[in-house]
Every structure is written in structure tokens, then in C-alpha cells.
């Protein structure tokens, strides 16, 4: 397979995952705005931070308002990582690697792009927002479904999956990091009322409210949430889960090509860190420090994969 093609596959699925995560974030923000209007502005600010979009947003706006943030994250022309821009990039990469995709996968991404383009052709009204966000999430899931159902389990599949999980691990870690202070043991001191709205943001941001309740019951607290999203290997958006997949796909590549590369060692290091960590050790080290370290390792791994498999000349 061409190095360029491997890169195109990885980025196509990275962008799709990013679009889906952005839609989920907007959904969360909108829910807070409707149910806890007193917190609205600060929540939109933290959602911008989670999307790593605060600086770019500020460059074009004087204040943070729900309307403007939603438009920015979904479709603003000046925002190079809006949902629309992600879909453009996903489809562009799809066209680039058209020969490595089955017809079903290509048509799914092309149709996703058409549907989202139509949905985001003009500013989205409050009334239409839920339907538009659903469209984005469903279209992304549909592409993933065609991948599962029609693609050979070979190196092409591995690169596509690596894109999904590198992006997802990044998004979950970022979401936690922006909210890390509400998860610190000191934030819920003895007798203080736990701030459920903040937790809701985190859990909704990964579509896991009910999964969490099922796993931990109603009475559990901050440590359980952090543990759930970092260490629970059953939770499909946790760091642990993402890295079990990344490790697996890299292992397949090692086997397919009969060659172990630097990226394999890096991934093994990260898997080791997640395997050995307990929630206590993470809080001892500092949750913020742990997440920052994770984010930089995740980014470095993505760069190493790019080098090892010759994405560019």
C-alpha cells in the first residue's frame, strides 16, 4: 500500500471521529444551557477549551455566547476544525484513498458529507439543532459500520482504526483535562454538595451517562468517573479501551509487515502506563499532570506512525 494511502485512511477516520466528538460536545453544551441557564456561559467556554478551539474562537468573537459557539463549532467558515471542515477533510481523504476503500465505505462517507453539508448549509436554529447533531453522529457511525461490514481485515483496516482511536483517546483525555478540577477529591470536600452538572458534562460528552450508572450506581463520585473514563477497558471511549485497540492494530501491522518499528515501542509504553495505573496512583501523581503526559505521548505516537509508515516523502 502507498504510504500516502495509509495516511489518507488514518486521517479520514480521524476526521470522522473528530466531527462526531464535536457534535457530542455541542449536544452537551446545549443540554446544560437548557437545564442550567445560570451556568451556561462558563460551560460554553469549557466546551470551546475541550474542542481546543478557544483561541481561534476568540480571534473572531468578543464574547462567548451559546449561539456563536454552536455556529463556530459546527460550520463557521473561519474555523478550520468545524464539523463541516472535518467532513470536508474526511471526504477529501476518502477521495484520495478511493482505491483502498470498498464502494460501500466510499459511498457512506460521500453521503455523510452530502447530508451534513445540507444540514449545515445555513445557521442551525435551536429547534433543528437536535436533529442536525443526530445526523452528524449517525452518519459517522454509518461509515464506521460499512468499514466493519465490508473491509478486509488487512493493513488498510488497521490504519483506518488507528485514526479512530488516536483521535478518540485525544478527545476523551482533553474532556477530562478541561474538567479535571471538578474531579479532584478536594472539590467534593466533606459535606459539600457534589456538582452533578459538571459530571454530567463529562459523561454526556462521551455518551456514557447510563453506562456509568449501570457500572457504578448512583452514589459514586469523582474518582469513579475518572477511573471509568481512563481505566475501564469495557468503556469504548476510555483511554484504556482506545489503547487496547491501538496496541492490537499496531501488532497486526507488525505481523503483516514482519517488522517492528519505533511506534510499536511507544505504544507499548503507553499501554504499560495504563495497565499499571490505579486511580489512586493517578490522583497521587496529579490528574492534570497524568492527562497532559498522556496527551503528549498520544500525539508523539501519531507522529511516529506517520514516519514509520512513510505517509509523506
Amino acid at each position, binding site marked *: 500500500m502507498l504510504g500516502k494511502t495509509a495516511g489518507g485512511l488514518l486521517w479520514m477516520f480521524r476526521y470522522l471521529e473528530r466531527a462526531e466528538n464535536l457534535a457530542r460536545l455541542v449536544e452537551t453544551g446545549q443540554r446544560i444551557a437548557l437545564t442550567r441557564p445560570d451556568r451556561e456561559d462558563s460551560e460554553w467556554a469549557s466546551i470551546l477549551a475541550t474542542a481546543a478551539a478557544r483561541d481561534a474562537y476568540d480571534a473572531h468573537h468578543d464574547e462567548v455566547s451559546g449561539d456563536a459557539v454552536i455556529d463556530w463549532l459546527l460550520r463557521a467558515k473561519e474555523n478550520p476544525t468545524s464539523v463541516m471542515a472535518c467532513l470536508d477533510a474526511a471526504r477529501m481523504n476518502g477521495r484520495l484513498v*478511493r482505491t483502498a476503500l470498498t464502494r460501500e465505505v466510499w459511498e457512506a462517507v460521500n453521503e455523510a458529507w452530502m447530508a451534513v453539508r445540507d444540514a449545515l448549509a445555513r445557521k442551525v436554529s435551536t429547534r433543528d439543532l437536535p436533529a442536525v447533531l443526530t445526523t452528524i453522529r449517525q452518519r459517522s457511525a454509518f461509515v464506521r459500520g460499512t468499514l466493519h461490514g465490508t473491509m478486509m481485515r488487512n493493513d488498510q483496516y488497521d490504519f483506518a482504526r488507528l485514526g479512530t482511536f488516536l483521535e478518540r483517546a485525544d478527545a476523551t483525555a482533553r474532556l477530562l483535562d478541561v474538567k479535571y478540577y471538578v474531579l479532584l477529591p478536594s472539590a467534593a470536600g466533606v459535606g459539600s454538595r457534589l456538582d452533578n452538572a459538571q459530571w454530567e458534562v463529562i459523561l454526556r460528552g462521551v455518551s456514557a451517562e447510563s453506562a456509568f450508572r449501570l457500572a457504578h450506581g448512583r452514589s459514586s463520585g469523582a474518582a469513579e468517573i475518572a477511573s471509568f473514563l481512563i481505566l475501564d477497558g469495557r468503556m469504548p471511549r476510555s483511554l484504556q479501551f482506545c489503547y487496547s485497540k491501538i496496541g492490537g492494530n499496531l501488532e497486526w501491522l507488525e505481523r503483516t509487515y514482519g517488522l517492528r518499528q519505533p511506534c510499536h515501542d511507544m505504544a507499548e509504553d503507553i499501554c504499560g502506563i495504563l495497565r499499571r495505573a490505579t486511580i489512586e496512583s493517578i490522583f497521587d501523581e496529579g490528574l492534570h499532570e497524568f492527562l497532559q503526559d498522556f496527551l503528549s505521548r498520544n500525539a508523539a505516537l501519531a507522529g511516529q506512525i506517520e514516519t514509520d509508515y512513510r505517509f509523506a516523502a
Partner: protein
Amino acid sequence: MTFDEMKGAGGEVRLPYQAFSNWFDSEDPKGLQAKSREADQLFRRMGITFNVYGDPDATERLIPFDIIPRIISAREWSRLSRGIEQRVRALNAFLHDIYHRQEIIRSGRLPAEMIARNAAYLSQMIGVTPPGDVWTHIVGIDLVRTGPDEFYVLEDNARTPSGVSYMLENRETMLHMFPELFQLNRVQRVSRYPQNLHESLAACAPPACTDSPVVAVLTPGIHNSAYYEHSFLADQMGVELVEGHDLRVVDGRIAMRTTRGYQAIDVLYRRVDDDFLDPLNFRPDSVLGVPGIFDVYRAGGITIANAPGTGVADDKAIYSYMPEIVEFYTGEKPVLENVPTWRCSEPDALAHVLDNLDELVVKEVHGSGGYGMLIGPAASKKELKAFRKKLEARPSNYIAQPTLSLSTCPIFAKKGLSPRHVDLRPFVLVSPNGIDITPGGLTRVALKKGSLVVNSSQGGGTKDTWVLEEE
């Protein structure tokens, strides 16, 4: 009197169309309208779109597809394919000759300056024999029809003919939408084309190839108007689609950068023009090609399809000599006729053209895509006057032809069937094993009533083209 391919002169349905016509009469027009819209959706979903040059705001466009097939009988096709084969054989012999001994010039059949002053003639190819002596691996012959047995060759596309993906996708769309039509008619299949293309290219592997030949398609990139076709063909053949920056010279071969390192390519089906192929040997500013590929080519390290320098054979000035060229190399009379052509570089011809400008079609010698041409009968006085000036300023830049009464074929218009002018581009593969012509081709149709311009850039559409099995 325009010849309609479905309704003969007396209004009766011609034989190849009879089964179709019966089917059509029994269909509900509303249902067909819905099918027509469905076809549009299918093409959009598949992403068969093209980019329009020179308009930064234009989004991707679809070439309109008309659901009424164009139907050719087995008998009509057998004569056409005989003529096409003869012509393509002559084209290859001609290309070999003009890059070697130039017998045709020595014999006086072709003036030396037709070659010497031809911008598409590549002096770098002098003395070069491509693997298998195949020059035009892929050819598209543009044909027009004026009567039941009157076909003319309008143009030979010997560089990088495009449109074959439409031939294949149009058929797939028809099979998907109207399966029953293919039970009523025995239509020769076109779907083997990608496999034939792959085999035909592999059969032209260079001397340096020692194993099973590795084929790749070279595209200028995602922004090229024909990118869809490039990726489609690579996909259908199961080969890599590469760009210049994926390639480099490694150990005297052209190799592509893969996830496992560099891998040599044996046959490169390039969809990049000669000029851009190699910045070291041709245009130094090209970023689309591969530095040094031409040297590797001459040393037998790679096959380039079509061979560099084939453009000289589809030049419109050379076209006017095609009857002589066919006869010179095959020893036979041409089966297919040329459209009579006046070369404006010749004073007598120029005088005739200027006197009859309002009745002629005038084309640029090196133009393509319907740009820069004059259709005399359809032009206004002002347009004629402006064109006359251009023609007088650079007569050798133009040729002129009579306005042919192109045949029509019905399209499915709002009020039912309505005749429109069509042309036909069959696709031909050449390899040391022989010449292979896919039964069918791309039918382009001028969707505007009365219009003779079928180019997609000028409002043309396409149709599925059926060649029926022998009765």
C-alpha cells in the same frame, strides 16, 4: 435531413430500437421521471463528479445522464469495429515511422513540416521503440453518424482519452434501474474493460520486469477534472493510484513509496500530459511528474502508457492526412471516412473557408473540449466577424470542416422523447496480443435542442450505449 437513430425517415421504429420502443410505450412517464431523478442521486452518491476549470466558486458538477439508451445493431458495430481496428493499427505504425525512418515523409504523402513544426512531436522520442512497439495503449476514436451506413471519424484521441468510466458507470446505472430491459434486449457487455485494460498494460511490461508486472495509474491529483476516472480505473484494476510525489528513481527503476518502502513499477498508465511527465526532460516547472522518468523509460526500466509523443497523431492538422496514413500503412482503403477538412494553412483552402465561413465549423488545430471553435451556421454576424479576424491573423492555427448533419437519438425530456444530436467514442486497447475494442463506448449528447456541441464542458450529457448481440 437529419438521420434519427430510433425513428427512420418514414417515422417507423428502426430495428435495433424495436424491443426498447415497445417497452417504453408500456411504461408510465411519471415512473420514468422518478427513475431519471434516481439516476441523478445514484451518480451523486457514487461521487462521479467533475471540477469545472476557471471557476473557483463552482462546486463539483455532474455530467447529466439521460436514461434512454443509444442502441447499435451487431451488423452496424461489426463494420465500425473493423474500421476502428484498421485506423488504430495505422496510428501505431505511423507513430513508429515518424520517430524512426519517416518513410511517409520520404514517400511524399505527408509534408515534412507537418512533423517538424508540430509542437506535439517529441524529438526526445526519435529512435525510441516502446516495449512491444505499442504506442497508443489506450485510444478513443470520436465518431459521428449522418445516415444508416454513414459514419465519420471526427477525431482520434491518442494521448490520454477520458470518459471510459462513464461508459462503465452508465451501464451499471441502467442495470440497476432497468434490469428488465436487459432481459428484453441482448446487450453485449462492457464490464470486462478494466480487466482487459490491466491485462493489456501488463502485456507491455518493459525489459527490466522480471516478475508479474506491477501496474499503477499516475494522476495529476485530486483537483484534476478527471480524478474520479483515475481513481475508478485504479480501483477496478486493483492497482495503486499514484501522484508524482509518491514516485522516485530507485536503482534505475521508477518506484512508489509504500508503507513497506519503495516498490518498483513496471507499467505506468499515466493521465498526465507529456509536458508534465518529467521536469528534467520536459517542463522544468512541472510538479506533477517524476524527475528522471524519461531516462528510465529509454533505458527499458518502465513502460509509459500511452507512449510519450503520441499526441502528434491526434493533432487536427495530421487528422486531415489520416486517409493517406491509413492507406500508406495498411495498404487498404479506409473503412471509416474522415470528415472533409480544409487546412487553413493552405492559401486556396483559406480562401474557400473565408468565403463560406457561415456554413463551416472551424476548429483550433491544437484545441480540445469544444473550446475556441466556431460553428458557422449557429454564429451571429458579430461572432463571424470576430472569428474571421482571428483566422486571418493565424491561418495555420485552424482547420475547417463542413457542418455535418449529426444523427439524433431521443432523450427523455419533460414531454417525452425528443431527438438530440449525439456522437460516439468507442474505447480501444492495444497490446502485443492485438487490438481490443469494447462493444459500446461513450455516447455524448447535446442536451440543448438543435445544438451540435456535445462536450460536457458546454452543456452535453451522456447515454448508455448498447451494442446488441448477433440475432
